[in-house]
């Protein structure tokens, strides 16, 4: 009968758990369940999946703000005054991009079992992250000193919203870096922890470059 889904083929399934099944119904579209290991523990790749999925939500949050920016700027009678973004932001951007490189260096040393080198570059990544955040606060203070506040103009409102939202996410990133450096991991291995944190960090770096270009070129 059309449309039914009986399994007609006798299947042999590897009895071992965690190694993945060998489904033969041609189910397609998405791989095989391989599930938790016999102890019921969560597979390590789940943390990576979770981070990638979570970043999808974060991306939608920022894209909503970006589309609001574009719409608000295009309003007739918008009284939009283009904002000269503080020069400080160039330096901050450079620092954040550099932190991605130190992070890559750190991770490769981690994989080479060079614990000391890993910690050194991991530490530099954290320091650069903190520098970036301090730099952003300095940029805010420069704007405030120039009399440009959150409510001064839609352009400045968006500037503060973007930088604050991104900055908060980056504070989370710095805390995660510190946590991996100083605290033993429980459910996830150190390798997974560094991978998950570095995915997040690179994403926040890329997101900042995008926002910076938007504020710079789309003002």
């Amino acid at each position, binding site marked *: 009968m059309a449309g039914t889904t009986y399994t007609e083929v006798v299947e042999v399934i590897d009895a071992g758990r965690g190694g993945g099944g060998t*489904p033969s119904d041609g189910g397609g579209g998405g791989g*095989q*369940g391989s599930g938790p290991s016999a102890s*019921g523990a969560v597979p390590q790749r789940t943390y990576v999946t979770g981070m990638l*999925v979570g970043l999808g*939500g974060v991306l939608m949050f920022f894209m909503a703000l970006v589309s609001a920016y574009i719409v608000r700027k295009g309003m007739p009678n918008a009284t939009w005054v283009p904002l000269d973004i503080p020069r400080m932001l160039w330096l901050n951007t450079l620092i954040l991009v550099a932190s991605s490189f130190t992070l890559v260096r750190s991770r490769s040393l981690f994989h080479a079992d060079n614990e000391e080198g890993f910690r050194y570059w991991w530490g530099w990544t954290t320091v650069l992250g903190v520098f970036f955040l301090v730099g952003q606060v300095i940029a805010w203070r420069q704007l405030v000193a120039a009399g440009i506040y959150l409510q001064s103009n839609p352009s400045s409102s968006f500037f503060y919203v973007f930088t604050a939202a991104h900055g908060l996410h980056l504070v989370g990133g710095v805390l995660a870096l510190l946590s991996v450096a100083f605290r033993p991991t429980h459910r996830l291995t150190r390798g997974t922890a560094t991978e998950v944190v570095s995915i997040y960090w690179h994403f926040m770096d890329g997101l900042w470059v995008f926002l910076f270009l938007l504020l710079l070129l789309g003002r």
Partner: protein
Amino acid sequence: MSSHAQSAHAAPTGFISKYIFSTDHKVIGIQYFLLALTAVVVGIVLSLLMRFHLVWPNAHLPFVSGGMMTQEQYLALVTMHGTIMVFFVLTTAPQGGFGNYFLPIQIGAPDMAFPRLNMLSFWVTFLAFVAIIAAFVVPGGAPISGWTGYTPLSGIGEVTGPGEGWGQTLWIISISLFCLASLLGALNFIATLIDMRAPGMTLMRMPLTCWGWFVTAILGLLAFGVLLAGGILLLLDRSAGTSFFLPYGLVINDQLQNHSGGSPLLWQHLFWFFGHPEVYIAILPGMGVASHILSTFARKPVYGYRAMAMAICAIGFLGFMVWGHHMFVSGMSPYSGFAFSVLTMSIGVPSAIKTFNWLGTLWGAKIQFKTPMLFALGFVSLFVSGGLSGLFLAQPAVDNLLHATYYVVAHFHLVMGVAAIFGIFAATYFWYPKMFGRMMSEPLGKIHFWLTFVGTYCIFMPMHFVGIAGGIRRYADASAVAYLQKLQPLHEFMTIAAFITAAAQLIFIFNFFWSLKFGAKASKNPWDATSLEWITDSPPPLDNFGGNFPSVYRGPYEFSVPGAKEDFIPQNLPPAQVARTR
């Protein structure tokens, strides 16, 4: 068994860690369910007050200050009813409640991927509920700008009306918290479903319930962040003097508002970009549950399983492209309106696939009319009845006439509100034995079904005619308008039907709590069903399977397989062990 001893988390011992701050997805599921049950009681009481006021606007009400309900208080009821029902009932129960409880079990996992995140999701949702309820008691009372919180009304403060001060602020805080919680929940659902499936559980062997929860989670992940962004901007407009949504030269109560050139329509876009996927967040789990239950009680495989799964994905995908149909009357370009209209009507295609496949599943079946089955059939009925009026409203020319009328109210209550509620009821009657180890009363369940089914049609069918006749929604007192007075008898009928239907829900609540103690003991598999939750104890042990995690050998709906002795084959039964006739 040794592997049991090392399971993902040790059994908690204290009452608080076991039932309050639990990381067990089953406890969290029940917590979500009870939260939704509390919310739905509040929501129903609010709707009864509205129905009462529409018919007897001058009645003396002892609990209202001043004795008579003001128009603003009526609008507060509209706002709070919509907000509580959409967020804390229709989003919370099907996904947070049943999804949390049964998704891990149905895919053969011991728990969600991130149990502590799961706990956090629930408690943030709970905080959001506390915030929205607090809006009733703050100075000025509850907000009056509708569940859509349209700007500029929602963006300014007390000057626009009582409830627009503290009440509206609490509303925004509540919704923002709810967004955060839902994002965390969605992340957890998706990661769990991708990485925690048992060996052999391919995507195409998942029960359709899992497909419903999976696509719902994706919708939540992509939609709630957008509303969160909107909520933050709105809060800044209210409290920090920005002008994202507030236009220049706005005069309210003879006061010129000091704002510069924001766009109220921008809020509508952000809201409905979330808001339309939200209606699928409410209904997709119900679709999954209905498919699952129809198949089980028809003792037949779901007709066109693959098409059903793909239709869920298609509805989810299209759901992101039709938000503009909520804004046909906003003055949008006719070209945009046309595009949104065509896209909206194209959702009829996957919806029709689902409907005809449900009918195909029932065709020629020896149907067992148990209570869960009745509610699943009721779901299909309501979804079709409510969905058809959607095709009318999808056309801008028709919508322009009907948008502000009760026709729209009738449409979305049938297709999104009541249909989703029927999905929740079906799920409750179906899974109650698994969740609590006891059966609910069948006779009481059937009485509850028939009263509710007939009752909801009595409420919402006449409402279509009120709408076509020009009955304007959100009017607190239609009796003051001459041409609307003729519609009052219909309103009286709907109000009486609403009170009877609401009273019928007491039967459900009695059945629910009475059966906890006095219901017949449930076996492992009281419905002779095939999916993995039925191979474990009722209720399931802490790690769901007592250490014996299943492997999966077949699809989820192998009912009445030719040549097999039993009329159902559990998903974990190896082919060699299937008892055959002969």
